[in-house]
């Protein structure tokens, strides 16, 4: 039965497409230009955005005396968890947890809101685990237990605390997320702009003289036995974390000092990512970090990796503006195809540009690396959290307070639903010893895909520096010698000379068409080539 409905839906979708094409063709005939070409596809042709609740605050997002819209739940979503019973639980920034019923209706006309918990200190994550909620507040990881089944929290139990909280506004704490081994992960921002009253809680590295609160700029775990353990360091503003299908844990970081552009990192014991301030805690008991005696500065990032042994490059660099300006949450697509052709890939929330980007990962020399792609834009406000429903659709939690974002709203909840139409996209981009392999979501037109002029490729990296952000440096165009199309027309091998390890390889496949003559919905892909297959490991 379901299958029949799905097929009907596809037929209707196809009719819609035909009607649309006709409409456009006649409009073009009126002006007598470009007759015969198709209107460019839009993201909204493939994914439908449903607004469940969006609101405009009474003040601008950076206002000193920020105020929400009057008389309503301030749905600044900072954590989201789909419940086993189909309700959506959300944490909001002012410190509450709400249970939302009927969010999956379309239109969402009957959504019910029920308050579960209150008085949390800026919770920035929400997880359903061991029949209770877990959330990271500014000062602790807390378990929320409802004793009597009335959907109101009765116990706010401290699972772990002990990281430094100086009172600095920028010391956000995020999580938890669960990895494949049962560990709960959390990440801790570094503080910025300390005031005198913050000093009593600041610690300093004995030799590097770097100062922060305890474990600030670190990723930590709480083991199944309940032990809080520091794992990896060097984070700046790690506002999103999430596991892939293999259960390995990743986090995103945001451009700033020491961080050339937004990044995605694989968190594992002993890794150092970039921001040196985190090293204030490097020699505390329990630190898994090797001794660091000096920090290279003002060098290209690949050279810094060579000079600083514990420095681990990001699995993926997200080039500034082209793939977001402020990366947030990480969500793996567990829908096995119900959310379109990207099953198993990671989706990365984007704050400033109110959008979502997409990441494909593979392992080369035992390390994660891969490519990022623009995916969908036009959300009503900053995308802070994402959570997938059972039907594969993705709930998107929004809030832009304190910073700025595109879109008319200040906060709210939207839902992105796959229409069943498959966009023409670069589905996967893999590194090869002599180039790249592109897998497309739909068969390509061999003529355009074989033509090397359909592609342009260049590589660049970033400066590792205390200065805010970085230009793309050491940029070099790369010649594509040959492009081979596979028999099933879904895969193209690009043969490239001059690959550079630890550099970002930026591809634009403007000229490639699908067999139906469609251009790519997003023609750009950015592969972080930390390791070249078949060559010795670079770090």
């Amino acid at each position, binding site marked *: 039965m379901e299958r029949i409905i799905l097929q009907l839906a596809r037929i209707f979708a196809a009719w819609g497409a035909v009607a649309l094409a006709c409409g456009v063709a006649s409009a073009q005939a009126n002006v007598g230009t470009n007759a015969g070409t198709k209107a460019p596809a839009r993201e909204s042709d493939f994914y439908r955005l449903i607004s469940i609740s969006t609101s405009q605050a009474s003040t601008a997002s950076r206002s000193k005396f920020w105020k929400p819209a009057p008389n309503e739940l301030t749905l600044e979503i900072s954590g989201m968890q789909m419940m086993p019973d189909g309700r959506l639980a959300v944490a909001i920034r002012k410190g509450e947890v709400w249970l939302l019923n009927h969010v999956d209706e379309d239109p969402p006309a009957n959504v019910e809101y029920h308050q579960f918990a209150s008085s949390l200190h800026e919770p920035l994550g929400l997880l359903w685990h061991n029949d209770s909620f877990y959330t990271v507040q*500014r000062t602790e990881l807390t*378990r929320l237990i409802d004793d009597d089944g009335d959907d109101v929290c009765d116990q706010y139990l401290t699972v772990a605390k002990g990281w430094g909280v100086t009172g600095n506004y920028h010391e956000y704490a995020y999580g938890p997320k669960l990895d494949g081994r049962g560990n709960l992960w959390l990440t801790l921002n570094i503080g910025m702009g300390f005031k005198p009253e913050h000093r009593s809680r600041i610690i300093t590295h004995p030799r590097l003289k770097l100062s922060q609160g305890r474990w600030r700029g670190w990723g930590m775990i709480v083991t199944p036995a309940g032990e809080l353990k520091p794992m990896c360091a060097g984070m700046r503003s790690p506002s999103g974390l999430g596991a892939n299908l293999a259960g390995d844990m990743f986090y995103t970081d945001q451009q700033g000092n020491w961080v050339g552009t937004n990044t995605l990192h694989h968190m594992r014991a002993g890794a150092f990512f970039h921001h040196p301030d985190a090293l204030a805690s490097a020699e505390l008991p329990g630190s898994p970090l090797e001794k660091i005696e000096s920090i290279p500065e003002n060098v290209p990032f690949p050279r810094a990796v060579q000079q600083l042994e514990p420095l681990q490059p990001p699995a993926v660099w997200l080039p500034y503006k*082209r793939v977001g300006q402020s990366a947030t949450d990480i969500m793996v697509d567990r829908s096995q195809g119900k959310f379109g052709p990207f099953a198993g890939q990671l989706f990365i929330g984007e704050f400033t540009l109110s959008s979502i980007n997409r990441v494909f990962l593979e392992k080369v020399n035992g390390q994660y690396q891969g490519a990022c792609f623009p995916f969908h834009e036009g959300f009503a406000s900053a995308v802070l959290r994402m959570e997938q429903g059972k039907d594969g659709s993705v709930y998107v939690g929004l809030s832009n307070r304190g910073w700025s974002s595109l879109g008319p709203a200040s906060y709210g909840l939207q839902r992105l639903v796959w229409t069943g139409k498959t966009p023409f996209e670069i589905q996967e981009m893999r590194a090869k010893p002599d180039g790249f392999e592109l897998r497309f979501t739909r068969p390509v037109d061999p003529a355009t895909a074989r033509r090397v002029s359909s592609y342009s490729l260049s590589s660049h990296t970033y400066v590792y520096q205390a200065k805010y952000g970085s230009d793309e440096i050491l940029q070099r165009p790369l010649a594509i010698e040959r492009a081979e199309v596979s028999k099933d027309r879904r895969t193209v091998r690009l043969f490239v000379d001059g690959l550079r390890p630890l550099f970002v390889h930026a591809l634009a496949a403007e000229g490639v068409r699908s067999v139906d003559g469609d251009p790519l919905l997003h023609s750009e892909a950015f592969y972080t080539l930390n390791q070249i297959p078949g060559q010795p490991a670079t770090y």
Partner: protein
Amino acid sequence: MVIGYARFHDDAAASADIGRLLLTELSCTSCHRPPAERATELAPKGGPRLAGAAKRLQSAWLRKFLANPQAVKPGATMPNVLHDMSPPQREKVIEALIAYLGQADYPQPKIVSTASNPVAPEFWRKGDAARGQQHYHQVGCVACHAPDEKFQPEKPKLSELEQKIQQLDLDPEELKELGLSLPQPIPSVPLPKLAEKHTAQSLTLFLVNPLLIRPAERMPHLQLAPHEAADIAAYLLQGAASETIALPSTDADLIREGAKWYSQLGCQACHGTVTQNSAPDREGSLSQAPPLDDLAANKAGCLAPLRSLSRADAHALPHYSLSNEQRSAMLGVLQDSNVAEQPSVFSSPEAQRMLQLNCYACHARDQRGGVGPKRWQFFENKREVDLGDEGRLPPPLDHVGAKLKLQWLENVLRGKGAVRPHFHARMPSFPQHAQPLAAAFREADKAAALSMPPLAELNRPQAETMQAGRRLLNTGCVQCHPLWGERLPGVMGVEISDVDKRITPHWFQAFLKNPAQWKHGTRMPTFFPNGKSTSPDILDGDVERQIAAMWTYLNAPQGELPEKLEQGRAHNFVLTPTDKPLVLRTFMQGNITHAIAVGFPERLHYAFDSEAMALPLLWRGDFLNAHPTWFDRFTPPTKPLGKIWRLPPLTYIGQGPSPPLELLPDAKITGRLPSPVPLQFSGYRLDSRRVPSLLYRVADCELKERIAPAAKGKGRVLRRRIQATVAGQRKQTLWLAVGLEPKRVQGRRAELQAGGVIESTAPLHTGKLAGATVVLTPLKMEAGRGTLEVRYLWNE
């Protein structure tokens, strides 16, 4: 089309010098030198900058436009300069001109996506026509350009005049008999077929800052965000524009030929050279063409009646498609006597500029202009609150030169003085005209300004004046106006805290005394009916002094808010426990970063420090303002709102049989103190009355602490009950510091120097902690268990 002429040429009171508008707007004086004393008055509008024009506009469109501007863009002020050429020659010249116009780069706004002003990559591709249609009809485009007949605002609005006429419920003939009629629709500035002319990119970039291309400011800068410009472009182009511009020829000979014709045809006089930011250098053309006065004296060229010119003469001239009426209107203003004898409503410099810039499309002044019928329905405020026309239509400009301070008026004209953020419509910016137009308004309204008496002298202490002003604002103004960003629920109006930056004091006084006299149809009521104050108890009821006190209060740095606003603000964010306790985890005054503040309906409250396992603060009265914790980006510590009872910053200061008599002698009791015993917080549990029990470990003991007002304490007693267990059925004693600076300690009761009494179920001692005297009490465990109760009693 010259929009001011089209709208007003039938206005009898305008006839004397409406022709002047044609002389400037058709840029006649680019080539025909005006009399020296009238050079400013008759300064030509000039044309768009043409650097790189063929790189941003479709050549096919340029070809058609150059061949016959009026045919492609009806109402264009560009004359046909090629009409006397043979078709093959014309084609050749056009190709050369287009090649020439394709060489330089065209001026573009610099758009950088920053963290505070984000812009999507390739935003011009991402316009949404439906949103663009909304913007087009809301932000002000339809003040000048035609609204879309298919577009209906959600709730079509009638003007107040229309409403009144409709209420009469008469048919048109009856209305006519009564001498009533609806205002007639006003003409629109036509748009060319934009999809043939532009790409989405070129039109979007143009809309982001039209002044880069059209420095004359007739198409003003509407301060559109890049994505709004993209939306409007998408709407105007309707998906019909090509994505790319077909680049013009780069043939060097052709370009040289184009340069020759550009010069020969006099293009430069209006358009300048084809370099970015060029301004026309007119001396060449002015010396070639006959002066304006000669034309007028001889009734030559455009000033001659149609068909009176010889065919050969006509051919030699640029062709403007002028009617006889227009010709004689222009001639009229050049015959000085005519103007002097019958000054028209548009004679003054500010009126002339308003005509040129089409300010009248939005603003009325001296009973002329204003948003036209069939257009005002699109003007709406963002929350659709009914504030009358005043709450949605651009304001009339009567007396504006007396009302606004000169600098502010300039700011407004530069588009930097938006005081009506609730409007969808935006005040565009006219940077080049801001200074002279503001000065012209000031000059024109000098007499009105002089008629307004200055503010009264107060000669009272500042504090008293401020209180008087604060009370007066409370009685009226804050009902409709926000003040320092604070507003009563539902209030939408002009912010008044910055009034002295904007408004002259004499106008402030005159307006407050009688709003309707200075602003026709305003909803602003008078608070001084018949010249009497409605608050006779303030400043002896003296109207002038009351107004002066309000002015003083509004212009002082932000002080105490008027009471109603203070209450409204508290209502939003002050937590008031009513039927059960409220909990807020927060940063708190006193450098407590792990505070758990708990407030009770009995108006007794405490803050527990879950880092130090201490109870440093009790207070009585109001609980907390949650705004700093909930919504302030910089998370300042929140403060107790009631009267504070300070307790030691550490509670657990020792273990074992004897009390620790002196601890941390070198530290200060006001600072952060290191705990002498290991501590671990475990959370809290809410009981059936939602009172939290705090759970924590001290050394090897598990503790549970419940703090709440005592049942029969009449709101003056806070009871602190601590239950402890220690593993192994052992004996253990913990020492608690429960009070500061006692006056007298006797048995289980201590009186404090600062007032208040502490009672304990165990004996009380005194000791020293970080230089302060503290009250100590033991929590003794026998066979692994113990309980302690400490009570805090307020004296009154």
